[in-house]
């Protein structure tokens, strides 16, 4: 086979059957896919059985961006290169408006596909969502069922009573609700 300058494409299929065609370099941002491609299971469509199409779109967006940064970072005076601050801002923007269930799906996807950067963004977002909330607010946000009896919950609260003291920061949050 001749060396083609044309970029090699990879096809991915989401759990709901939608097929995405992306450049190989984009797919390779995901370590799981990189391993598969290196073992030469190319040509066919790679099924991503646990990721729905809207989530896969978001994941691919992330990977494309990573490729854009890394491909241009070899040249000097790179206009795309980001400082730490810019990267942070970009990450925040990328995760903006992501609701809790999408976030969980994104986490599952990036964990399955082994994309460390995206996983980190997701975990940080999750932390910022939990921070500063009371147990019931956390349960509501993530649909967690409270399986403690009221007595058990009371006991855990009493063990660490200081943590439940209302400080101005927490008060502000709960009163705004």
């Amino acid at each position, binding site marked *: 086979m001749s060396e083609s300058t044309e970029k090699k494409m990879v096809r991915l299929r989401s759990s709901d059957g939608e097929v995405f065609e992306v450049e190989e370099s984009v797919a390779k941002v995901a370590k799981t896919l990189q391993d598969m491609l290196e073992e030469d299971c190319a040509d066919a469509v790679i099924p991503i059985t646990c990721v729905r199409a809207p989530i896969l779109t978001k994941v691919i967006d992330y990977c494309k961006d990573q490729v854009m940064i890394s491909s241009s970072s070899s040249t000097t005076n790179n206009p795309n290169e980001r400082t730490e601050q810019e990267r942070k801002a970009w990450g925040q923007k990328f995760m903006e408006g992501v609701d*809790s269930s999408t976030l*969980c799906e994104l986490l599952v996807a990036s964990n399955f596909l082994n994309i460390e950067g995206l996983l980190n963004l997701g*975990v940080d977002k999750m*932390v910022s969502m939990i921070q500063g909330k009371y147990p019931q607010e956390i349960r509501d946000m993530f*649909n*967690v069922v409270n399986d403690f009896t009221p007595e058990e919950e009371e006991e855990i609260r009493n063990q660490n009573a200081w943590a439940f003291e209302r400080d101005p920061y927490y008060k502000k949050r709960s009163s705004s609700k």
Partner: protein
Amino acid sequence: MIPSKRQAVLVNKPTDISSLNDDLMVEILGRLSLKPLYISKCVSKRWYGLIATSPLGKPTGKSAGLFVYDQTGKWGYSSVAPTDQFEEDLKKALDVNLRFLPFSPNVMVMGGSKGLLLCVHGRDHWLNFYVCNPLTKKWLEVPMPNNVNGGLKHSVTLDFEPKVSPHFKIIRYLHKCSTDPRRYGRPVYSMELEVFSSQTGRWIKNRVLHGPRATCSISQEISLNGSVYKLVNPLYIIAYHFRGNSIRVEEIQLPTAVTRASYGCIGEHGGRLYYSYWDHTVSIIWVLLDVRTRLWHMQHVMSFKSFSAVADRDLGKDKWKTVMFHPVAFLSDNEIVFLEESGGAVVYNCEEVRFRRMRIAMPYNVTETRFKVFSFTPCLVDPAKLLRPNYREPRQN
């Protein structure tokens, strides 16, 4: 080409936080600061369980403070940076005086590792060990060892590395014996150890082959990645590697010998072993890059002259002379702690080349050097819950 056979499609079940596996949840919870973490314990049984059994630390991985203790079992605690929110919260949550122990105040601290402390009930009960967590205020009474007659009082180590195993070990160094030389053709030393593991709930006696430097005596020791490292002056670190029930001992040569006129200390940070060497001309920090090949890397060198100039600047001219330049612990890979004769402590940061003072609440002045220091990394483990269920629950009030 799309394969004709359709791949199995997962049933579309709504994805929520329950679909995240434990590792991911621990990653998330581990990045929470202390207060939201305590609040999260209330969310559900799963969250409670994950928080109670996982290591918890600051995102930076720095230790939260230092426990200093000596042969008489007295101890003191100092937090590292009393300025940030984590430390503020920790201060409210920690009981560093161990008042929650049933026999308080008659407590002697014998050792510690990460977030757990090893204590005994006064000097008359020095084999009646208790393992406690000053953060969760939970404790466990360890069964009596089988060999009550052997062993020195203070040659006991607590080994706890939540990254490797949720279980802790207590190691008693009983005595050194030399083996029959005819069997090996050369003199071979061995050491008898008695090890308690919270996994089995029993003390098990072990005889391990040892180099000629086998020692039961008190020396600096740290536990790291499931192994215990003891600093044996002047030239060696002895490493005890625990794998299941077997113990392997090896001697690791230090890159610089500690002599009468110099001091050394070992420490750990970020899963690596550090060694600091000090004498009156130079200070060096080494890091052990590879345990197997024993590859040391020189991380930092500084002459004593420039060192004393920095001390003059940061601690006051000539005031630093009460500092005993005997390193006792590492706070991170470039921060070393020294104790002062007055009972205080100073921290030297090699990267920023500066000193700062920290307050150690010692109940007395540290005038002798036979004390140990361990960096405390808080965790929410409840030691009483680590034992197998068939073990008799100790009395807990």
